[in-house]
């Protein structure tokens, strides 16, 4: 790393590390996976730093990388699960689970709140990718519709309708999961 690039990168890292880690946590719900994505995001940021054309702000760019990386990670995880029958999940002798990875390990969620948050997140994750992203940016990241529109490269009107549809679908999924 040259000194100048390194300094710029360090500044970007310190300004965005919390944002990236927390957004990755909202998508992946597991601290270990969020750490992996955070690393990948900043490696991509470093590699793209020279070719970054300031058409959008650095923060918007970092948001986009994080969202894309998280969605790709989720897709890869889903694919792995689908082809999971190729490898046994259990020890042949003891019949115990080989991989007992938690599906919800969010360090920002308090114990008394955990069950409710986990249920909501599981329903959010059943939504289509764009609805999920719009809802997470609005509810967790507290972004305005204009900011979400810039991050998602959509019009404000489209974002409004995405959030509306996301809330409707989420409502249906939550009442289904309750009943």
């Amino acid at each position: 790393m040259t000194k100048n690039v390194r300094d710029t990168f360090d500044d970007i890292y310190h300004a965005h590390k919390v944002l990236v880690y927390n957004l990755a946590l909202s998508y992946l719900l597991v601290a270990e996976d969020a750490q992996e994505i955070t690393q990948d995001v900043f490696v991509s940021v470093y590699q793209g730093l020279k070719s970054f054309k300031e058409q959008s702000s650095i923060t918007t760019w970092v948001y986009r990388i994080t969202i894309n990386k998280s969605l790709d990670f989720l897709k890869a995880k889903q694919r792995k699960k689908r082809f999971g029958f190729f490898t046994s999940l259990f020890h042949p002798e003891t019949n115990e689970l080989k991989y007992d990875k938690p599906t919800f390990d969010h360090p920002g969620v308090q114990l008394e709140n955990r069950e409710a948050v986990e249920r909501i997140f599981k329903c959010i994750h059943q939504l289509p990718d764009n609805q999920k992203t719009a809802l997470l940016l609005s509810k967790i990241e507290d972004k305005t519709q204009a900011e979400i529109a810039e991050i998602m490269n959509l019009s404000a009107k489209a974002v409004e309708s995405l959030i509306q549809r996301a809330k409707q679908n989420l409502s249906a999924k939550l009442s289904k999961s309750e009943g």
Partner: protein
Amino acid sequence: MKHTPEPDLTPLDRIARVDAPPFLLTRIRQKIDESSRTRISPTFQWVVGIAAVLFLALNTFAILKVTQKTKSTPVLAQGMNVVPTSFYNE
């Protein structure tokens, strides 16, 4: 239009922002160093590309030359009267 009730998302408001673990930066720097070490330089990519194009061009040229030669061989042989094509006809 059917009215759907707003979902209760208040538990999400109580999620605290957490700081990224301090060891992440070291790991990121390590990954960046590793990727820059394994990455092929653009100069090398250009050199390999030009060499491949030259190789293909030379091969095409050689093949064309050989086919041209084989086509012109009977004509040349006839001109030099090496092939007695009219021998059996006489």
